[in-house]
């Protein structure tokens, strides 16, 4: 594709303001935060004296932060696994183009329209061991009375993840549906003629074609899970017993309640590094795809 030098320049000029804005509001501000994280600023009066990596060291030694890191990993895993699995299953079911597909599709996607604050409040109610799901299970004769759901440190993470999956599974399903539409019917027919059953067609023809969709979904979903704050804040505030505590919650509390800006900035930078570890390989991969 031949482009003149002048055209390339014009193209750059058009893109430049966006670049500038992002450089200031993202990289500039990150730089400022990183600087703060190297100080000892605590309280409302700024203190710009550099103390090195002291904040990071104290964070790594802090039992709450250690737990937060583990929780982030666990939550991301459950959230991703659940989303991909349910998204795939729902897409597979809807791809059959049964009657009522549109209705179901709309139904599964509407949670994305609702804010985390709203859904979190309702889900906490549902997960209450006294009158929530336990009451429903008992109707069916299944005594789940001893399950603590959101009050049980061992179950709470799954509850929160379930609420998050409820919110996003529709999105993943939509991704997979679109991907499946791209698998032409001819190939499927050919496979069926060769004697392959439904499941085999799915496993060997459709699934491999969905790999790019999966990657794309993972990127968008982990973007959400690493930043997750509103939902957890509304549902458990990080409890019970730190079971669902996240760096985002710790950072909010220590910055906006504890006025410990240096520590808050340090947590922010650590969160950023975690995101970078996930995103940079993806960006490299997508650049290779483009090339």
């Amino acid at each position, binding site marked *: 594709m031949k*482009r003149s030098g002048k055209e390339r*320049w*014009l*193209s*750059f000029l*058009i*893109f430049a303001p*966006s*670049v500038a804005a*992002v*450089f200031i*509001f*993202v*990289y*500039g501000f*990150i730089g*400022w*935060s990183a600087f*703060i994280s190297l100080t000892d600023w605590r309280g409302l009066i700024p203190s710009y004296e550099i103390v090195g990596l002291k904040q990071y060291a104290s964070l790594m030694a802090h039992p709450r932060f250690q737990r937060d890191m583990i929780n982030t990993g666990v939550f991301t895993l459950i959230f991703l696994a659940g989303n991909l699995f349910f998204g795939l299953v729902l897409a597979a079911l*809807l791809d059959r183009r*049964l009657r009522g597909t549109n209705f179901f599709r709309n139904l*599964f996607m*509407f*949670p*994305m*329209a*609702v*804010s*985390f*604050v709203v*859904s979190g409040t*309702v*889900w906490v*109610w*549902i997960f*209450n061991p006294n*009158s*929530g799901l336990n009451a429903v299970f008992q109707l069916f004769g299944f005594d789940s009375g001893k399950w603590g759901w959101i009050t049980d440190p061992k179950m709470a993470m799954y509850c929160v993840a379930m609420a998050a999956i*409820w919110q996003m599974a529709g999105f993943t399903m939509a*991704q997979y549906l*679109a*991907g499946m*539409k791209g698998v032409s019917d001819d190939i499927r027919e050919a496979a069926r003629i060769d004697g392959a*059953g439904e499941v085999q067609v799915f496993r060997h023809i459709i699934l491999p074609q969905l790999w*790019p*969709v999966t990657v*794309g979904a993972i990127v968008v979903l982990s*973007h959400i899970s690493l*930043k997750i*704050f509103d939902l957890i804040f509304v549902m458990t505030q990080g409890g019970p017993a730190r079971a669902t505590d996240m760096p*985002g919650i710790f950072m909010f509390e220590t*910055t906006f309640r504890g006025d410990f800006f240096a520590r808050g*900035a340090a947590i*922010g930078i650590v*969160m*950023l590094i975690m*995101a970078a570890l996930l*995103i940079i390989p993806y960006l490299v991969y997508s650049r290779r*795809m*483009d090339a």
Partner: protein
Amino acid sequence: MNSLGKKQLSDGVAYAILLIFALFFVLPVFVMLNTSLKALSDAQNSTMWSFPAQLSLAGFIRAFEKLGSGLLNSLFLTVPATILSSLIGSINGYCLSKWKFKGSNWLFTMVLFGMFIPYQSILIPLVNFMQKVGLYNSLGSLIAVHVIYGIPITTLIFRNYYATIPDELVEAGRIDGAGIVSIYWRIFLPISLPSFVVVAIWQFTNIWNEFLFAVTLTSSPETQPVTVALQNLSGSMISQWDTQMAGAIIASAPCLLIYVLLGKYFVGGMLAGSVKG
């Protein structure tokens, strides 16, 4: 292979599974609706599953009173921000996919990375900045913030969309003597509707439902979007659940409407959006 028989059985199973999922998805909605139609004393956690002892619209009325200005603010925030960020994303995506220049990929990658940052880490510099330029506590600051932080995702979606459009269209325009801008205006923009719809839905929903920026950058009732107004319903001490649930329904209504009306565009558009790279 008895294809007819097998297919029927599978269909039945498929429907059954779908129904179970449907129940799971509808559960919270039931709780929300049910509670919002109850009288205050009835709207407790312990009576969550029982139908209202008496139907009461008091919750909705109270919620409307409290959320009225918040709804307007959200409208004045979300619509301009969505339109602006969609346009910017479109132009950016167009340039990046059809008019690549040296280093454009690197620049784009750097811009893209910006969408993954945790917003808490830039909140304080952001507020200081807004104070200095005099935009603090105005919808303008929120619009600016959402447009800027929306640049990566809108650019990405449009870039991927335009990548699926044959370069021949550009060449055809060039033969006619058109430049970058007029090719965009006359050729690409008119065919961008599907992508605009996708981006608009994504941005509208995210901006409408956003809370953190909203509560930090606006500090008075005249400027607060509906997410903050919704939080305000809970008061500082006592929760009025019927009003809160009604308010939640009201606040979610616009986005839900969009989903109901434009759902099919969303699915089709996602193919162009995230699948490629």
